[in-house]
């Protein structure tokens, strides 16, 4: 590979220390993403998807000490160990983000229009007037009714989906090279979702923007992403091209996840398919495979040591499971 990926994460580990507890929500995860590409991150809720993406950007709530190790390189620059002012320079401009919680990203006492315009002023060096015009364009772009009137509304006056689209508009205002979108469409109905995904795809092509898409919706992954990382309990369980991983999931957790998608022929009122058991707590690092207690295929090797992420029979797909990888050797 001649050119380095836009974002390259290697062996990232995040430790969080609060007054009462210590936990490791991200434990040695690696992935990379190139310009113009979309990487989906899916997995158990609480598995570290949000922390993994936002902690290296210095975006963690107060009251918690964050320790990072490993490497996160963006455009060849190492982010881990970078000073706060330097990280701040990247945020919003080169790296845009959409928070899972749209309300926290918006200032509750300021009008929507001002908040969008500010991003444009700050990052694109626009005059206040040009920025206002840009704000209006962006609000139109994300397909909101009464665009001009919306600019003078406050966040609490908008529905969940409208707020979500405002947050998307703000993220796009700086024309970032990398967009980290944490569940950008969960609050949207499927028609608006389709429209937003089309918009993001269009921007990806036009600006050659790369995108990390965190979501629970496999339909969204199927339509938007090139590659996928499946997370379970702070670690990556499987990664590879979307059209391989979703069609032919290998890791037992991925298989359970895909199997849990409701199908058209599931009878009305029938039980939803899930996975047995509960996810582990992330206190102490787990010795073996974190999924072993819930896994129907588990063997002794699974609990002995943490299974490494290795290429499967299809070398584009990597899986951290000794059972799957042993099958490969046998095959």
């Amino acid at each position, binding site marked *: 590979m001649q050119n380095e990926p836009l974002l390259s994460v290697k062996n990232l580990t995040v430790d969080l220390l609060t007054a009462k507890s210590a936990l490791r929500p991200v434990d040695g995860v690696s992935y990379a993403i190139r310009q113009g590409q979309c990487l989906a991150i899916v997995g158990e809720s*609480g598995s570290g998807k949000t922390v993994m993406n936002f902690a290296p950007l210095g975006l963690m709530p107060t009251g918690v000490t964050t320790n990072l190790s490993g490497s996160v390189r963006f455009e060849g620059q190492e982010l881990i160990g970078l000073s706060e002012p330097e990280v701040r320079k990247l945020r919003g401009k080169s790296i845009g983000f959409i928070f899972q919680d749209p309300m926290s990203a918006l200032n509750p006492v300021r009008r929507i229009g001002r908040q969008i315009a500010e991003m444009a002023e700050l990052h694109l060096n626009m005059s206040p007037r040009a920025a206002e015009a840009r704000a209006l364009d962006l609000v139109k772009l994300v397909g*909101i009714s009464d665009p001009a009137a919306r600019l*003078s509304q406050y966040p609490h006056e908008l529905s969940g989906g409208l707020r979500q689209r405002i947050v998307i508009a703000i993220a796009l205002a700086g024309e970032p090279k990398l967009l980290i979108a944490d569940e950008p469409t969960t609050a949207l109905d499927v028609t608006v*979702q*389709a429209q937003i995904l089309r918009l993001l795809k269009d921007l990806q092509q036009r600006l050659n923007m790369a995108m990390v898409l965190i979501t629970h919706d496999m339909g969204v992954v199927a*339509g938007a992403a090139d590659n996928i990382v499946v997370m379970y309990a702070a670690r990556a369980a499987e990664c590879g091209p979307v059209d391989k991983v979703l069609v032919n999931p290998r890791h037992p957790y991925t298989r359970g996840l895909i199997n849990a*998608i409701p199908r058209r022929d599931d009878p009305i009122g029938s039980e939803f398919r899930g996975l047995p058991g509960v996810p582990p707590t992330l206190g102490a690092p787990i010795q073996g495979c974190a999924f072993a207690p819930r896994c129907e295929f588990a063997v002794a090797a699974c609990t002995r040591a943490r299974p490494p992420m290795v290429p499967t029979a299809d070398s584009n797909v990597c899986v951290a499971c000794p059972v799957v990888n042993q099958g490969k050797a046998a095959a």
Partner: protein
Amino acid sequence: MTHAPVLKVENLQTRFKSVQRGKYVHAVDDVSIELYPGEIVGLVGESGCGKSTLGRTIVGLEKASAGRVLLDGVDLSTLSGAALRNSRRALQYVFQDPYSSLNDRQTVGEAIDEALLIDGLRSADERTRRAKELLEQVGLPHTARDRHTRELSGGQRQRVAIARSLAVNPRVLICDEPVSALDLSIRAQVMNLFLRLQKDLGVACLFIAHDLALVRQAASRVYVMYLGKIVEHGPSQELYDHPGHPYSQMLLASVPEVDPRVEKLRSAPLLKGEVPSPTNPPSGCRFRTRCPLAVEDCALRAPASHVLSPDHNAACIFAPDLHGGKRSALIHQAA
């Protein structure tokens, strides 16, 4: 269903002051719905169409400007004092946003304890036992009790919020996208929990969601809302198979496929045109500005509601044709 509805909403209207001086946002406009004991009913529709406002008005978090909400046949606006408090407790709302519905300074245990106290559980032992049971029901480990709610992931928070609303043994749950923040396996757990509550305890549930596959599986009936109005209503399978309103048809056709090979080639229907304003809604049929089938008549008067099959209604002049497969908003759109 021969028995009486536990919840009946009649011609409900909720409006907000608009930023346009002297005008109103007509968020919910003349909506009537019914909920029978022990059923899960879906409420779907475009984001911003008024689903949350409808739910919030039902439980009294917003003030209705017209219409009535009846619990067991009793108009809530005629109640006061203890009677009103009791009725309100029977009606619980699970919030769309698990971030703002929990107090950040509380631990999980405190948040649940508070709800149990409101329910009148005096004995601390009893509360501890019940809290443990509730945490188990929503799939959280017992050890979660001591953690602050701000330390939880989105999905974990949502489960605490659900546990809280279950603490008071409600008869009707208004669930506003209760599982959209959860991963598929926990989503299944929580959905099965709702199914159990419905079957075992007879809790009725109005289920607001964007995930149409999930709604189909869980709900016996579905209401489809567009710009403040219910445009279609029917048994879920029948409505999904034979929608009678162009909006429902386009909504259902927009559900993405989970096979990337299929999904990447598919072109979802596009709702064209500006999203109309709930402050100045279009005359006649509210969907007409974006409807591929619209004709002149659609602008003149609000379309009547057609009965398409037992308990299946749609408000579109072409509803019988759409329902019968003689016309389609999708084909029309492609042409």
